[in-house]
């Protein structure tokens, strides 16, 4: 690993201390302690992140890259420091490669539109997988229609793993891009992105990773992975909503046209012609989400202080425990049984609809997600309308898993 990487040796994992850092975990729901297991939807925020937002608006609010006054310089510095923290966290070569967006969806739309307009021609092909979130399907469908491009879908096995040979077979001289989810939000599958990237690169095809469900659970080193772009959201890694990141290799980003036009992304504007600003500003039109970008930097600091490796190890233990516990209930079937999984446990219960499960366990204080998880093609693949999904974060405990399991046993009893 490069020496700039912030990932360090696993430290002692103090779960009580971590839980005390998240004030919302002290909430009660329907008279029961909150058991928050909907972390794949969004994670809760540590006090440090909440404090940073208050501090920003209380002491340093000003627009960035504009003024020469004290506050503007202060907020600009904090904003650019956050970019550097993110650069270090994913081990990008340069902060020019870190573009602030609204979130993963916005990042993927940026990628689809800029790459599509800059690089794709009618007849070209893009490869995605059958387990993509809608946000890594629809932007490509839109650009595919605009540019007359074909979208090809790598199928998955019953276990929820991509069929690698099919992916290899799909690659041909028309393939111009591979965009794939790192960790599936509905199945929990950790995709073999290293092998996907290696294979695609043999044919000089760039690879985009949707890391929305990976950034908070796995060590990500973009140089080691050698991915060409990588998208994630701040709110899934203990930061605020409305802020996200698109990482892109500097050379590739320089070759692409801007996504949106406006202030901050230009260097000179006349009515005849506009020259664009340098990276990363070329892709950051308008006033950025300054406060949330800065607080995302704080969230990254927080995660780094615990260590993503320690978090991954702890969460892995929780997932194993939850999977073993739930598998003992005969009425329950786990959806997504890939060998390599992270944090997500999707399941269906015989004759009980996920929405009833969601409402029922809520009264035990348990927050889980029920529905299609914005992955309708995955639901179609398994011929189910929806699943219930428990997803774990660093502050969850085995006791909370027990609470979930007990509430599931109760609903099975009531409904049968």
């Amino acid at each position, binding site marked *: 690993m490069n020496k700039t990487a912030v990932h360090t040796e696993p430290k002692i994992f103090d779960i009580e201390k971590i839980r005390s850092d998240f004030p919302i975990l002290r909430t009660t729901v329907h008279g029961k302690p909150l058991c928050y297991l909907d972390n794949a939807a969004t994670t809760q925020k540590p006090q440090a992140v909440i404090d940073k937002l208050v501090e920003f608006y209380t002491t340093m609010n000003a627009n960035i890259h504009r003024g020469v006054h004290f506050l503007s310089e202060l907020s600009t510095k904090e904003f650019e420091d956050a970019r550097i923290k993110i650069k270090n966290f994913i081990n990008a070569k340069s902060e020019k490669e870190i573009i602030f967006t609204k979130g993963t969806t916005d990042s993927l739309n940026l990628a689809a539109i800029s790459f599509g307009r800059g690089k794709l021609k009618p007849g070209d092909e893009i490869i995605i997988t059958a387990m993509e979130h809608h946000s890594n399907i629809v932007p490509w469908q839109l650009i595919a229609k605009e540019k007359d491009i074909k979208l090809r879908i790598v199928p998955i096995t019953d276990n929820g793993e991509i069929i690698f040979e099919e992916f290899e077979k799909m690659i041909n001289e028309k393939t111009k891009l591979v965009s794939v989810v790192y960790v599936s939000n509905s199945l929990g599958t950790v995709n073999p992105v290293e092998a996907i990237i290696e294979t695609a690169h043999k044919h000089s095809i760039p690879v985009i990773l949707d890391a929305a469900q990976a950034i908070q659970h796995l060590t990500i080193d973009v140089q080691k992975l050698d991915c060409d772009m990588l998208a994630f959201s701040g709110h899934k890694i203990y930061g605020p909503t409305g802020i996200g990141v698109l990482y892109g290799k500097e050379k590739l980003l320089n070759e692409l046209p801007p996504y949106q036009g406006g202030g901050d992304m230009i260097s000179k504007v006349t009515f005849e012609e506009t020259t664009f600003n340098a990276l990363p500003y070329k892709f950051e039109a308008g006033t950025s989400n300054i406060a949330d970008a800065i607080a995302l930097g704080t969230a990254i600091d927080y995660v780094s202080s615990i260590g993503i490796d320690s978090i991954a190890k702890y969460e892995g233990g929780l997932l194993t425990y939850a999977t073993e516990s739930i598998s003992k209930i005969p009425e329950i079937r786990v959806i997504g049984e890939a060998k390599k999984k992270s944090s997500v446990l999707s399941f269906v219960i015989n004759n009980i609809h*996920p929405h009833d499960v969601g409402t029922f366990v809520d009264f035990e204080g348990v927050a889980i997600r029920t529905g299609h998880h914005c992955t309708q093609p995955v639901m179609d693949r398994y011929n189910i309308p929806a699943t219930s999904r428990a997803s774990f974060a660093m502050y969850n405990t085995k006791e909370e898993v027990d609470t979930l399991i007990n509430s599931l046993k109760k609903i099975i009893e009531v*409904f049968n």
Partner: protein
Amino acid sequence: MDAELRELYQQVILDHNKSPRNFKKLENANHFAEGYNPLCGDKIDLYLIVEDNVVKDVGFQGSGCAISKASASLMSSIIKGMKKEEAERLFERFHDLVTGKLTGEAEIEELGKLAVFAGVRDFPARVKCASLAWHTLISALHDGKKVISTEE
């Protein structure tokens, strides 16, 4: 079980969910509509035989939560033998019930078995589950649009 939760999942609802009435396709139906809630994926195919302005037979198929399935099942039993206009009026009162607009005890009692859905008013997210079958019924009675969605 929590009181509010028991109010939502009354025994009648659990029973209709487990053994829905009229859960079948009517081959000789002369009215049909398909209901769909894209937010949660609930689906219902509703078949009607309407003769001389009267609902003679009802059948439905589909998938959904206990609330939507029980609602379709109870509706199918209750509207059998009703005139079109009566069924439409009943829907209006049912809708008022689940959205909390119908508060008088006597008025709620008038709804008979449908009164078991009163608990839905405390769960705004589940109103669509309870009303999907009824929206589909109105569409089938008018036989206009074949697919109706809760999101229009």
